[in-house]
Each structure stands twice: as C-alpha cells, then as structure tokens.
C-alpha cells in the first residue's frame, strides 16, 4: 500500500493534461538546477545542524566547554541546531519527493530512517528522563553517565544517519541486481519494477550449469 501511494506520488501528483505533462515529482527530478540546489543545501546544512549538535554532545560527554554549564551550551546552541534541522528536513522531504519509489526500495534510505528514529527517540528520552535532574549536574565538568550515554548515542546515531544518507546514491544493492536474499527481502524488491534476483539462487544455477 505504501508503495502504491509512492508510485502515485511519483507519477501522478500534480500531473496536468497532455502526453508530455509531468508530475511534480518528475518535474523536480528533471529540473535543470533545482534538484542540485536542494541536494547541495541538504548536505551543506549538515554543517549547521550536525556541527552544532556535535558540540552539545561533546559538552555532555565532558570533553569540551567543561567550565560552561550544560544549560548555557544547550540554550544557546540548540536554537541553531533546530534551524539547521528544519532546513535539512524540508530539503530532505523535497529530495524524497523527486524519487520516492527509488528511495522506498533503497536499503540505505530505510536504514537512514531507522537511525533517524533512534536519534529522535534518544532526544525524547533525554528531555523526559535524563534532563529531569539537570539542575544537580548542570555545572559539573563531567555529567552523569546517563547524560553521557545519551550524548554518545546521539553522536553515533547522527553519524549513522549521515553515513546511510551518503550511501544512498550507490547501487551496490539495487533491486534487479543479483544481491543476497536478505537484501531482497529488506528492500521489498519483489514488489519493485526490477524484481528480486537472489545472488544465492544465481550461484546455484551457475554451479549446476558448470556440473
């Protein structure tokens, strides 16, 4: 059902009359410069978003700004992080709109969403649980282990999100290519227009022919 919705999004949404009419998605992907500008902005915004959240995480780990209260660092830096996130989310959404079906079948995009969910969950847990007694450790050079674990998890999950995002353009595990069975399942390749080709089955066929 999700795939059908994405196919409609890609092929039909915003499509006018006539044979050459394009959907919004197709127009965006085929644009002369707009897609490039969106992608460039998405990557460049990482400097603002991830660059500032890393500093907050490093403070929580107790490795920088050790003489500055955690609340001062987070109150001053996080508004910049949020501004970066809004820009990154908006451009990311537009980039997704350009090729929704390709992203749907991408293992890297799916992994990116999983790590994004972990990062978000970590933020929720930090604000609802870890931060509850912040007044007690706000000025400590080295915050308690719960805060440090949360910071480490934040760093790891955002680095994972960035890594998965960078891997998306690579076709190592594209549907239709001979890829491990587990990848075909994880990417729902059977439903894709290229189908699922199991590497193991191909190897068996090749082995049988050789015999």
């Amino acid at each position, binding site marked *: 059902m999700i795939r059908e919705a994405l196919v409609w999004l890609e092929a039909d949404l915003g499509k006018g009359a006539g044979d050459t009419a394009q959907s919004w998605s197709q*127009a965006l992907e085929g644009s*002369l*410069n707009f897609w*490039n*500008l969106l*992608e*460039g*902005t998405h*990557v*460049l915004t*990482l*400097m*603002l978003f*991830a*660059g*500032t959240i*890393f*500093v907050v995480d*490093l403070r929580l780990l107790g490795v*920088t*700004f050790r*003489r*500055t209260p955690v609340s*001062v*660092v987070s109150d*001053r*830096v996080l508004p*910049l992080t949020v*501004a970066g996130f809004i*820009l990154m989310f908006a451009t990311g959404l537009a980039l997704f709109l350009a090729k929704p079906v390709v992203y749907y079948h991408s293992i890297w995009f799916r992994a990116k969403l999983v790590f994004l969910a972990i990062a978000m969950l970590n933020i929720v847990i930090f604000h609802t649980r870890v931060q509850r007694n912040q007044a007690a450790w706000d000025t400590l050079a080295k915050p308690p282990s719960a805060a440090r674990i949360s910071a480490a998890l934040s760093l790891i999950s955002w*680095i994972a999100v*960035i*890594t998965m995002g*960078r*891997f998306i353009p*690579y076709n190592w595990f594209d549907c239709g290519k001979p890829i491990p069975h587990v990848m075909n399942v994880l990417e729902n390749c059977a439903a894709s227009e290229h189908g699922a080709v199991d590497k193991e089955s191909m190897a068996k066929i090749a082995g049988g022919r050789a015999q």
Partner: protein
Amino acid sequence: MKLTFEVFFPALRPWVQNLVNVWPAPFVKPQFASFEVLHILSLILLGGTAILMNLRLVGAGMTDETPSEIYRNLRRWQDLGVIGIVVTGVLIGMANAERLYDSTAFIVKMIALVAGIVLTYGASRPVARADGAVSNGARFWLLVGGALFLLGLGVFVTGTLINVGLFHLLTATALIVLIALTGRLRWIYLAGLIVLIAVQQYLTHVTIGTDDIAKLDPVNKTFFVLYSLWIFGAAAVQLFTKGRGREAGALAKLIAYATILVWVVGAAAGRWIAFA
C-alpha cells in the same frame, strides 16, 4: 573557455591519469563512499566550530561566553576538522583525479580551501583569542584571505553550469544575517526577503511559464542580484549596528562573516563538482 587545472598545467594529464594507480588510491577507490563519509564528517566538525566561533564575534550564538573561551574550547576540534578534510580530500582526490583535473568547481574548492585556512588561522582565531581585538597581523591575513576568497568567487560566478551553486552562499549569508540581526531590523530584513521570494515565485511560475528558460534566465539572474543587494546590504548594516551589546567591532565581524562563508563556498563548490 572552461577554467580547469588543465589550463594552468596542461602537461600534467598523464601524471593525473596515473594517480589512481599510486598507493593509497588503489586501496581508497573500492572504499570511496566510506572516505566520502569521513570527508563530510570532517567538514561538519570544521563547519560547526567555525559557525559557533565566528557567530560569537558577530554577536550571536554562545553570547554568555567570551570569544576567547569559545576559541579555547573549540580550537582542537576545529584543527581535527581541517586535518580531516585535507587528508580525506587528498585520498578521495587521488582516486578521482582526472575528473577533478577537468572541473572548474574543483578550482573554486581549492582556492576556498586556501582562503579558508588563511582566514581561520590568520584572522578569525587570533581575533577570537583576543576577544575581538583585531591586530595588524589579523588585518594582513584578512586582506590575503579576502583577496583569495574574492578570486574564488570570481571563478565561481564565471563558471558555466556551476555558478548556480552561489545560491548556497546567498542562503548561508541570509541565515547568518537573520541570526545576527536583532529587534525591528530583523523583522524588516525578514519581510524584505519574503517579499523578494514571493515576487520571484510569482514572476517565474505565473507570469512566465516554468519551461520558458529563455525568459526565466534573465529574471532569475536579476533576482540573484536583488537578493545579494538585500542580504549583503543587511549584513553591512549589522556590521555597524550595536545588537545584543556583546559583539566585537565592525572589522572583527567582517572577519567572522568571511570565515564562515569561505567554508560554505568551499563546501558548495565541492558539491557542484558532482553536478557539472
């Protein structure tokens, strides 16, 4: 004429072509994407520290701390970012050398890299360390780094198919100015930006068809100039306006703006290597 490294070093092509076979390129090439990730992570570290250190000089961000305290806490992380982009840049560059040799965006990136290092280590960091005081040395390096930055921008503006990437510079400047301005000035600036965006959208989507490139091109170029005038004009006003009362002087602010933006231009040019 397309400005590439071949124009300056035409005899180097065989050497450049062979770089992919020189160690460690054969090791890097199969892991190219992983080294790209390291390059991006280094850029993030460099960008984040540059933004926080220089926004403080502009009078925004971590205003509870002195610029020297921010410098003291972030300098080693920034060093790590600079070393990271240079090392990973050399590695992925070796594995992709011929493409870079033929790329105008790569020239912009290299000029911006040198300008970024000059402005960061020669001007921005000494000024932050001195809590906003601009020494003669910092003035000198501002001139050198600023001249290189302008040279890089000149190549970017004249580069066919890549000059659209300058919109990244405009976006970044627009954001910094929005963060740095305070009170009524911020609202006037934001209102002006919104009006410009609305008029451009109306003209390019309603008055002119979205597929009429011949008419769209001059309109978009005109708006690029209008955006530049509005955004850099507001930045100039911010340089000489007292905001939250804790920022440095106009020259230190100029150094701060230039240092953030030079890294933005370097990163933008790096991205546009892939597009054109």
